[in-house]
């Protein structure tokens, strides 16, 4: 009983607390107003890093003698072969009406043939004879030589018992013979004797055909002849970032390389060389090379089987290439023609069936010059910011070792392209171009701190925006007036931190 009296007041006291414990469970949330300072980005990036991260089509990125970055775009161009310039040797007849005859040889039109080295073909003989006896005959081509011996055919014509008789000899292979001509003529003679008594006879007719002749080497005097090459295109993606504005490259070059194994004088001409940008604007080459062309080096008679390299380089001194590249082309369309023995020289030249002229084109663009360009790029965005983010303050510190600066502005647009807000009041400089020395190299990295406030109203606009329009302006030192040189080791340090105000 006493225990009950003791416990009752205790229980009475504790019961209200037990009820209060229920209310502790009713806490719905913790209301937080917090400002978190976080480093978001800390990066030092060199030009080399950017290049490695890029997907440029440049075939080679290297540096020139002073370390300036150089972009090379190269492609193999069209070529011209002997087969395109000279037709195959046609079959040709010959006749020896008497025991000795001089036969004119005109195998290649326009070529005063001196030597023809044969690697295939036959001579087919047809003989008519009215002497009703067996005849021994020997036919000699004194200009067709192999191993120092003239081409000689010896046959016995067996009397068939009728007159006149016609004999078709088995075709004779002339592989390995050299046809050495005097005044484009060859001499053919025959000796025919009766088998019975060895007395000499004159046959009705001795003749035949040269068939399927193939050459290893042709020398002679080639008359002037023009030919054209196919049109080709070289793509350049260096300017594909979509920037507009002024660009002046200090010393770009466009090289046309020729590899010539014809033993001929060939003058190459650029019949078309046009640079075209993505907007369709184009500038064509002018200058003396377009009209005059230039003579390709060629192997001499003692250099048969070799080739000679020639390069035609277009630069700021001999062409309008600076003007052409200023339009920031994305492709170069070019076509060339050639002329064999353009001066109608009487010198002896040669060709082989493997002779050809191959071409390649190489655009060399050193990162040396000035530019002041801008671009506008629109991108779909979904900031998807949490509702708890109420405002943000960004601090951007750039230390720019590159000789060009950047200004940016970001506009936030809705679906109707109405500007809801912008990141800055005006376009803001975020990179200051490093000052450069007399050679165009940066002297010291230039630091710049940019504070970016994003109040609640701007966050709302960003959340409502569907697109972001980025305006970016880039300019070399002194607002694009001073030529600068860009090297792979030039670096940009970017540090971005933020104070994010959260309410939850």
């Amino acid at each position: 009983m006493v225990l009950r009296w003791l416990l009752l007041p205790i229980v009475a006291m504790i019961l209200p607390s037990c009820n209060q414990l229920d209310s502790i469970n009713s806490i719905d949330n913790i209301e937080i107003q917090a400002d978190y300072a976080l480093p978001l980005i800390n990066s030092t990036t060199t030009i080399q890093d950017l290049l490695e991260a890029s997907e440029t089509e440049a075939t080679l990125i290297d540096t020139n003698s002073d370390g300036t970055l150089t972009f090379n775009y190269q492609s193999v161009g069209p070529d011209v072969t002997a087969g395109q310039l000279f037709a195959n040797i046609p079959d040709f007849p010959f006749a020896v009406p008497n025991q000795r005859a001089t036969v004119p040889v005109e195998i290649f039109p326009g070529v005063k043939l001196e030597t023809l080295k044969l690697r295939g073909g036959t001579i087919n003989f047809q003989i008519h004879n009215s002497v009703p006896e067996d005849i021994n005959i020997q036919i000699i081509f004194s200009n067709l030589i192999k191993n120092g011996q003239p081409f000689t055919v010896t046959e016995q014509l067996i009397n068939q018992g009728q007159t006149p008789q016609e004999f078709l000899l088995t075709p004779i292979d002339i592989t390995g013979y050299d046809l050495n001509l005097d005044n484009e003529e060859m001499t053919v003679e025959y000796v025919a004797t009766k088998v019975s008594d060895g007395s000499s006879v004159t046959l009705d007719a001795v003749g035949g055909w040269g068939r399927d002749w193939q050459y290893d080497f042709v020398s002679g005097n080639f008359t002037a002849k023009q030919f054209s090459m196919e049109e080709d295109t070289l793509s350049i993606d260096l300017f594909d970032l979509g920037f507009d504005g002024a660009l002046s490259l200090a010393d770009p070059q466009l090289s046309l390389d020729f590899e010539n194994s014809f033993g001929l004088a060939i003058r190459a001409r650029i019949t078309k060389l046009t640079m075209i940008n993505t907007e369709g604007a184009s500038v064509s080459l002018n200058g003396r090379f377009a009209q005059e062309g230039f003579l390709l080096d060629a192997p001499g008679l003692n250099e048969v089987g070799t080739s000679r390299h020639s390069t035609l380089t277009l630069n700021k001194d001999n062409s309008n290439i600076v003007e052409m590249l200023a339009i920031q082309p994305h492709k170069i369309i070019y076509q060339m023609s050639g002329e064999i023995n353009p001066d109608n020289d009487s010198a002896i030249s040669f060709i082989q069936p493997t002779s050809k002229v191959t071409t390649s084109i190489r655009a060399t663009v050193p990162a040396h010059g000035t530019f002041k360009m801008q671009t506008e790029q629109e991108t779909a965005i979904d900031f998807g910011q949490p509702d708890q983010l109420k405002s943000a303050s960004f601090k951007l510190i750039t230390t720019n070792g590159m000789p060009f600066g950047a200004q940016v502005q970001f506009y936030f647009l809705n679906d109707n392209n109405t500007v809801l807000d912008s990141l800055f009041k005006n376009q803001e400089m975020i990179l200051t171009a490093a000052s450069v020395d007399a050679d165009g190299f940066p002297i010291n990295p230039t630091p710049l701190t940019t504070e970016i406030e994003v109040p609640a109203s701007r966050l709302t606009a960003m959340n409502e925006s569907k697109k972001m329009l980025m305006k970016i302006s880039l300019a070399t030192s002194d607002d694009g007036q001073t030529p600068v040189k860009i090297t792979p080791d030039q670096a940009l340090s970017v540090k971005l931190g933020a104070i994010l105000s959260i309410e939850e």
Partner: protein
Amino acid sequence: MKIITFNKIKKACLPGNQGFQKKYGFVLGLVFIGMIPLRAQDIGLSMMTNLWQTNTLNPAKMTDRKFIFSFPGISASMGTAALTYNNITSTNAEGKTVIIASDLIDRLNKKNTVWANTDFETFHLAFGKDRWQVSVNHAVKTNNSITFPKELAQLALQGNAQFLGQTVNIAPEFNASTYSEWAVGTAINYDRFTFGAKLKFLGGLSNFSSGNAVASIHTNDASVYELTLASDYTINSAGLLDVTGLDGDGGEVAINTTDMDGLDALFGQNKGIAFDIGATFRLHDKLTFSGSILDIGSINWKENAKVYSSNGTYEYKGLDLLNLIESEDADFGQIADTLSEIFQFTKAEQSYRTALAWRTYWTVSYKFSEKFRVGGLIHTRRLKGNFDPTVAINAALDLGRWWTLGTNLSHGKSTGFAIGANTAIRLGPVQLFFATDNLPALFNVVNNSYAHARLGMNLGFGKRED
């Protein structure tokens, strides 16, 4: 077209179980673990001179009975300095009860301890005669405390922007131990002095505690808020508790119970030993002084023992721009991942030792009459990472021979001001008692930061002579 999303930046910034807050949120969660069990400071009990249980606070205390048997009793307390439910909660415009972080932080001290202790006393058995007394008792005790710097809460709930250019310590220190205690005690009286001592044999059931506790964060104001994080921090777990997710095993951080059987843990390898010593000095019939030092000892945790360590200095400067550009999914959530990795712990399965939270009681008691006495108390205890003193005064009145009423007024570093009450009733050999060190908390818990209660029953036989 690349779509940039910033949604995951929330992962890095917002409070939750992600990012670098994960680990510390986890540790803060221990607060709630600590609120489950309850155990006492026992300010009032120390002054209930006619109660056997005062012997648990000073082994030199003797009772007036030759033979004492105590039934199972419980003593429990919990508290935190200055924080009460009502002073940290508000009703917002939507009528919901919320905690406003800034209000909560305004009420925090430089160091803040949340503690909760429970003694479940299975039995006491004591026998005394003439000038001596022997006793044996068993209890299962749970000690929980966490001490965290105000800056940790500020960092988690208000962000680090307020600490630009400063290095702030954010390391919490905590201990959650449950162990079984067998105690053998004796007391001897000599003239006006009485000396007592207890030898305690401890068996650890579970432990989850911090060891080295150094963790700081510096936010660089001169640049773009680069973070420098320094840690020399260890977390121990043993016995029935196991922690997953700390050492980057891919899972979320969680405390789990192991498959270990409770009895295995109780009689297993987690052994310890501790001492209580005490003395009383009766200056004259009215004035008595006493002092005791309790729980001098430690437990060596071997069973299922693991030590998680995070040691080093790490600087987080931000993400690499090129990587971000090249990434298909530009994700600032990487920041949270990186910070989380920085605080990654390495696990070692090794034994470790934890000291008990030692306590001292220094009392003075003055008898105005046979039925009315007053006293004073200085109590100290060492909570994890914090020295926690309390001073108190008390008065007790005997109402007849069978009922004693007492009250006490205390002020503790971790408890603030508190008014306690206690009572004991003797019904023949049966003695019932109840004590609380903070009476208002029993019926108004939402306005109090400290609660305590002790309840028990003794059987006493044979009155001893003075």
